[in-house]
């Protein structure tokens, strides 16, 4: 077996261009640890699927090297890579039964009959479909087909499984159920998973680490909580979760805080993240749940007057749209805790936030 500390996948300076002019993937460097669940998250056209296809071997890299368990695989055809793959549309063979679908990778590997039987039985139990072995894919529901596709990608015990938006075609409830199921399978088998999605909730739920792609570049690579709480640039802050944006100019940076003059409405104390100097344009990023309505005097440095524009009751919290600093799309999530302030539309309120919750990011 391979050294467990060595990354199972390494992308080294990988570039990809389909037409020889536009780079779809620009200089990707990424190590994926053994046993890790890594998600490539990004809007469509961001290069995430291209990276997955290069790893699977269906697209050649234009430049750079991809290593699988330390071995370069640029010249290895897909059928010799031994990587399991789950496709967006399941890609089950419609002319074969569930059993035959699962037997396919095992027969290719010339396993003996008893071993094939043992493995298929185990795989079907893992996805909780042991009684469906004789059915054809066309006779299964979408969720069942997806489970069979997962079982088929795992039945030959690959070290690495790729999943290309596998839950995209399922309805919301089933999608959430399958998220947990795939996560549990990953945890119990210890297999490495590279998962591609554009659904951030899915990425946050399932991953050990998330690589946020945009414009062919990994914008940030970190754990879900890190990604949500400490976005490194304006794109990530905007793409992951809900986000209030205030545009302004940096006045002064001093260590862990900086002062920013928000356009036309005064000075804000913020946490400098990727700004470099005075006079620079910046985007202040604030999570709606980190903003307090009518904060007690003296608890937070940033307090502004606002007008309540809209209240939407969502049960566990009240989504409040406030006009603050000239922005009428400033969202505050007021938790429905006991004794929370009863607000009315058009009421004048104070909104406040802490320095470290207000991140000063690049202006783009």
């Amino acid at each position, binding site marked *: 077996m391979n050294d467990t500390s060595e990354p199972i996948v390494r992308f080294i300076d990988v570039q990809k261009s389909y037409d020889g002019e536009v780079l779809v993937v620009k200089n990707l460097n990424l190590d994926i640890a053994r046993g890790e669940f890594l998600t490539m998250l990004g809007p469509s056209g961001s290069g995430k699927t291209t990276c997955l296809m290069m790893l699977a*071997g269906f697209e050649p890299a234009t430049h750079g090297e991809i290593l699988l368990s330390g071995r370069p695989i640029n010249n290895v055809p897909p*059928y010799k890579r031994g990587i399991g793959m789950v*496709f967006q549309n399941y890609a*089950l*063979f419609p002319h074969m039964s569930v059993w035959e679908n699962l037997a*396919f990778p095992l027969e290719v590997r010339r396993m003996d009959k008893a071993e094939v039987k043992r493995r298929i039985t185990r795989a079907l139990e893992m996805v909780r479909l042991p009684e469906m072995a004789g059915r054809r894919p*066309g006779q299964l529901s979408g969720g069942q087909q997806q489970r069979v596709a997962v079982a088929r990608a795992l039945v*030959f015990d690959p070290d690495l499984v790729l999943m290309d938006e596998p839950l995209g075609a399922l309805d919301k409830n089933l999608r959430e159920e399958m998220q947990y199921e795939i996560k549990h399978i990953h945890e119990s088998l210890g297999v490495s998973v590279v998962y591609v999605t554009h659904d951030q909730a899915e990425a946050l739920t399932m991953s050990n680490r998330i690589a946020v792609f945009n414009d062919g570049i990994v914008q940030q690579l970190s754990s879900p909580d890190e990604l949500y709480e400490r976005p490194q640039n304006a794109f990530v802050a905007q793409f992951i979760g809900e986000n209030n944006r205030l545009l302004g100019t940096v006045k002064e940076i001093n260590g862990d805080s900086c002062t920013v003059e928000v356009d036309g409405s005064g000075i804000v104390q913020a946490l400098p993240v990727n700004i470099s100097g005075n006079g620079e344009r910046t985007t202040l990023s604030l999570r709606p749940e980190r903003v307090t309505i009518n904060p007690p005097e003296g608890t937070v440095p940033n307090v502004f007057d606002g007008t309540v524009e809209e209240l939407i009751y969502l049960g566990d919290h009240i989504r409040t749209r406030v006009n603050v600093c000239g922005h009428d799309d400033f969202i505050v999530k007021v938790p429905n805790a006991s004794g929370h302030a009863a607000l009315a539309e058009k009421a004048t309120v104070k909104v406040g936030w802490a320095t470290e919750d207000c991140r000063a990011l690049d202006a783009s």
Partner: protein
Amino acid sequence: MAGPPPYATPLYRSWYYGFRFLCALIFLFLIAPILVIMPLSFNAEPYFTFTKGMLSLDPDAFSLRWYEDIINNQQWLHSIKNSFIVGIASTILATTLGTLAALGLSRSYLPYRAAIMGVLISPMIVPLIITAAGMYFFYSELRLTQTYTGLILAHTALGTPFVVITVTATLVGFDHSLTRAAQSLGADPVRTFFKVQMPLILPGVISGALFAFVTSFDEVVVVLFMAGFEQRTIPRQMWAGIREQISPTILAVATLLIIFSICLMTALELLRRRNERLRGLSAG
């Protein structure tokens, strides 16, 4: 039959029945020549017309003598054998070549696809007499006229376009992630083709093969140019039969051919439906 809806106006009603009558006439127009041939083949007299005895359903006016004549006639038996040899051989060749061509044409990165497609299906579009004359001169240079090889190759060229068209149509609906899936599971391209692609495009291949066979089986123009006495096929023998010895044996052969065609069509349609059901594409 449901009949016209209750709110139908008299004009609508007359159109409703008139339309059906028109359809029946067109149907009759298409099938009448075939229907006439069948009873005539049982004629006891060596004529191509209904005798008085036949019209009054006199049993003595009917006979199987023309069917016996086929069995006793070496020329007919030889031409039937030839038709099957040439038909089956050219079908196998046309199906193989046409399927491979269609697979290549389905690749998205193939340049000049429309031009290649045009060349491949040209034997279907160019008037047959021109193709036949061209083949005659070309094949005589290669000393392939009046040989089985030459006739089989000529019929292969005529049958290939049908296979290309039907298989291409099947491939339009083919999900290419299935071939990727097969490869990710460890199957090399050859195995992927035989285990995944081939079973799924089989209905198109079968339809194409059927058309190719029928094209060869009832083709007379190219045979007139290319075949010697030794290579006479059924249509060529019928042609000779009409011109040289007018005998109702032709009608008996024609009837047998019609029955053969119906059986072939039915068998293949059943096979195709079974295959589609196995693929899980249609319910039940």
